């Protein structure tokens, strides 16, 4: 096991620059998310680390060793693809065993290892099935077992849950988290979903337009965003001129107070514990407020009510 270091990596595709001098350090044993909107370069960065794309400039170090000029097959990485990349003509067992059979490991060892892995990903009973006979979630667990079979130095997951439905996604996220606690292999997960990144990862690298915007724990990104982009990407935000306010940092009162402004309730959305209130001010400014169920019940808000809203905490970015 070892960390990953990326130094000044640049990558261009036909005139389009996917990565501009990107440098990232990923600590050994961590679970890091590469987060960003589509086209931000996150998948490209992952593929550069895997050796599937060759950067124009820069270096990739795995465990302190410069692997920039090594082909993917010699890097000791395990990779999981968004669309599973299952070997369709092989059974689940043969898929998982693939990395070991191409390395010509002894039969007994392969048998034991595949058995362990299928147990780890809870697919013991399905070893003889073909990928087409599995659900999306099962296919992705198979792909993960296949990647782990070769005991990779690092595990790279490219939008692994992107093709799954919401419920399965949630289950697999929690499962991946537990798996990482068991296996401890340095893991990078690429995602465009900030909730997924915050739920799964210990560290987030937020990318935009081929550049790193901020690196930090989910809490750091949420509470001390480096700039406007980070602030608005990691959670909902209200923009009031030059200041930014999170929806839960707005307080609603039925009476005016110092620093509060008048607004009308446009919509109230009940999401269980959370209640979202959409307001509009006289000047046309729309505001989103998050309340707890109890707060909302006390205020008895309804469409058309006039309320007074006041920020309890705001952020200003000085350029």
């Amino acid at each position, binding site marked *: 096991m070892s960390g990953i270091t990326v130094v000044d990596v640049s990558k261009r595709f036909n005139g389009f620059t996917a990565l501009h001098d990107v440098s990232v350090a990923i600590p050994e044993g961590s679970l890091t998310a590469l987060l960003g909107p589509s086209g931000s370069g996150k998948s490209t960065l992952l593929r550069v680390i895997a050796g599937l794309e060759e950067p124009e400039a820069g270096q990739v170090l795995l465990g302190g060793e410069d692997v920039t000029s090594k082909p993917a*097959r010699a890097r000791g990485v395990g990779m999981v693809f968004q669309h599973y990349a299952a070997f369709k003509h092989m059974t689940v067992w043969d898929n998982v065993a693939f990395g070991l059979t191409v390395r010509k490991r002894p039969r007994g060892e392969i048998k034991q290892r595949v058995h362990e892995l299928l147990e780890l990903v809870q697919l013991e009973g399905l070893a003889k099935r073909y990928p087409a006979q599995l659900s999306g979630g099962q296919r992705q667990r198979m792909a993960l077992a296949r990647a782990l*079979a070769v005991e990779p130095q690092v595990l790279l997951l490219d939008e692994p849950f992107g093709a799954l439905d919401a419920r399965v996604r949630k289950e697999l996220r929690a499962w991946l988290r537990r798996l990482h606690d068991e296996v401890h292999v340095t893991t990078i997960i690429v995602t465009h979903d900030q909730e997924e990144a915050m739920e799964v990862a210990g560290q987030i690298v937020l990318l935009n337009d081929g550049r790193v915007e901020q690196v930090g724990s989910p809490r750091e990104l949420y509470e001390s965003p480096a700039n406007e982009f980070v602030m608005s990407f990691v959670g909902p935000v209200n923009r009031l001129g030059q200041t930014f306010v999170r929806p839960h940092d707005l307080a609603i009162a039925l009476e005016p107070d110092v620093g509060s402004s008048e607004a009308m309730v446009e919509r109230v959305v009940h999401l269980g514990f959370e209640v979202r209130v959409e307001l509009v001010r006289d000047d046309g400014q729309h505001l989103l407020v998050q309340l707890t169920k109890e707060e909302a019940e006390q205020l008895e808000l309804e469409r058309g009510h006039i309320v007074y809203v006041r920020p309890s905490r705001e952020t200003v970015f000085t350029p």
Partner: protein
Amino acid sequence: MARYFLRFGALGYLALLLLVPVGLVFYRAFEHGFGHAWDAVSSHQAVHALELTLLIAAIAVPANTVFGIVLALALVRTRFPGRGLVNAVVDLPLALSPVVVGLALFLLYGRGGWLGGLADHGIKILFALPGMVLATMFVSLPFVVREVVPVLREIGTDQEQAAETLGASPFQVFRRITFPAIRWAVAYGVVLTTARAIGEFGAVSVVSGRIEGKTETLPLYVQARFEAFDTPGAYAASVVLALIAIATVVGLRAFHPREETA
């Protein structure tokens, strides 16, 4: 109603164009009894023609299969200058009349041609097996490429890249991932190549010199019998050609488990 019309229309068209003429050949071949037909195709000359035809196919088909797979991989998986041109040139044998192919080879290897000097060094191309193999390879070149290219495009590179990250060498990736994915396309391409190789007349006719008992393939033999007013001989040999064709197509169907959906 419209459905029945379509069905009968399609069947009628097939019957009129394909089944009736081929069936008639079978009928005429066996008109005077099985023994008569057998005598016609077991003559020394006919057997030699069949052997020569199979020998040419046995060289041309494997060569075009290997070349076809390599070219399909190059066209789909790599970018090189002139790729579009190569892609277009592959189809040339489909568009070009086989007689022109034969003539082109004749000009290249014939006396005074660029490679005509080979004959002086004892390497006989024209009026011999090498020329006939070259002509057959030329006309049957596109089939494997054309069958494999769309399948390669469709399977994409995900599986190959996954195999690569798992430690497979380029050859292992091909043998264990790419080839199994394209094998039915290759098989179908081989069937088409074989059918074309065995049936080829025009190009081979020009370069072979049509020396009876020496450079006469089965299609040339049929023509020769026909021209010599030996119609029973021509029909009987035609039946052999038709049976080979049917066997190739049926063979593929039997191999093929079902129409595979990728």
